[in-house]
């Protein structure tokens, strides 16, 4: 299973690097969202810094949806999905590979957005360890849950509107917990972030497990 995961992750990332959709479209979209929020909220830097963590994670969430949809769009070209099913790769392995590729893209996205939030919103960086931990736990959860729902919505003509409807309520706790943990870290009281990081870890564990188990059968029907 692990070897299959590495194989699939490598494939997805290579497709990504060659097409550069992530770099050319998703990341600029994310930065644009940050800017647009600033316009819409019409706030001074103090307020923007205060809401920074929340806006950061909302942006990660929406941009992440694009990355997840992309992860399955590449399979619909040239019947790649059939090839995937027939390849004999383990279902759980395909899941882990796809989720890992999405997670890698999310990490890159988060680095860029972190810079954006520091520069554009004037957020002061503190509690780096807690921030890092939060990002890891939240990213794994986002990638895992997103990939599970991505395959459910995959291959459907209404995919683009169905995926957000299905996955946003599910990801709402991740958004909540990640934003609160980051706020705690930035406020100089990282210890308060621990319950949230614990929840993010539980969430990630549940969805990684669910994905490994359910992805194979779900892919068969996509």
């Amino acid at each position: 299973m692990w070897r299959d995961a590495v194989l699939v992750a490598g494939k997805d990332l290579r497709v990504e690097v060659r097409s550069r959709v992530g770099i050319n479209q998703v990341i600029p979209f994310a930065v644009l969202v940050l800017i647009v929020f600033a316009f819409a909220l019409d706030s001074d830097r103090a307020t923007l810094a205060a809401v920074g963590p929340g806006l950061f994670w909302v942006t990660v969430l929406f941009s992440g949806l694009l990355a997840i949809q992309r992860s399955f769009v590449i399979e619909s070209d040239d019947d790649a999905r059939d090839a995937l099913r027939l390849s004999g790769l383990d279902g759980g392995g395909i899941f882990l590979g796809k989720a890992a590729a999405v997670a890698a893209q999310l990490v890159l996205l988060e680095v860029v957005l972190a810079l954006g939030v520091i520069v554009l919103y004037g957020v002061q960086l503190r509690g780096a360890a807690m921030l890092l931990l939060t990002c890891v736990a939240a990213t794994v959860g986002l990638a895992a849950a997103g990939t599970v729902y991505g395959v459910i919505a995959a291959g459907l003509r209404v995919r683009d509107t169905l995926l957000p409807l299905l996955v946003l309520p599910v990801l709402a706790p991740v958004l909540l917990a990640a934003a609160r943990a980051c706020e705690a870290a930035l406020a100089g009281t990282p210890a308060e972030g621990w319950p949230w990081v614990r929840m993010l870890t539980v969430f990630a564990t549940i969805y990684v497990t669910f994905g490994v188990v359910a992805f194979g059968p779900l892919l068969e029907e996509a």
Partner: protein
Amino acid sequence: MTTKSSPAVRVLGWLSAVTLALTAVMALVVTPGDVNMGDSVRLLYLHVPTAWLAMYVAFGLTTLASALYLWKRTRSRFWDLTAGASAEIGVLFLGLTLLIGSLWGRITWGVWWTWDARLTTTAVLFVLYVGYLAVRKVPASPEVQSRRAAIVAIAAFLDVPIVHYAVEWWRTLHQDASLGSPQRVLDPQITGTMAWTLLLGVVAFTLLYCWLMAHRFRLAWMEDRLADRAMQIAIEERRAEAEVAAS
């Protein structure tokens, strides 16, 4: 197939109508207002039953039926159709819960909405099951459609405790000062006639749920048969065409 429902279902229908009417009368006229929240408590006689029926009965049945459908030994169209019908009624009841709750909040707190733990969780729950209903409607082969919907139902069920705990935690950290302690306001002193009326309301809505389920399930079953027939007709037409072409 007759258009008339069985006598049992019709009795169920009348019983639920009567108990609902009785609940309304008790709630609006007979019972007193609450010590703390006054007349707004009358809305709770609708709000609490719809919430309980939706969350524990309707969505609970959807989850159970979905699991039974996924398990090979008990797989049958019956469970898939049950899951869908129950979810639809659950969404209806939960929508009513939110509506009545919003009116109640308007009276008690002067706002149509607030981000307290219960409301937020309920709102997310509502959207989760609306999503489930949307997945059921996406066209695909019947087995694929049913299995996919069943998995989404299980996933939604798994998500409920997560959302619940996340939001609870969040709201206990951010007690909205202007609302005071929600605990005291949200849990009125339910005694005497008020308790009986609430119980009556739960019974009434349970009967209503059963009656609606009987009809909605039947409807789902008929739609399923119709789809099967349409498929059969299409296959026969195709076969006839092939025979004409071959001759």
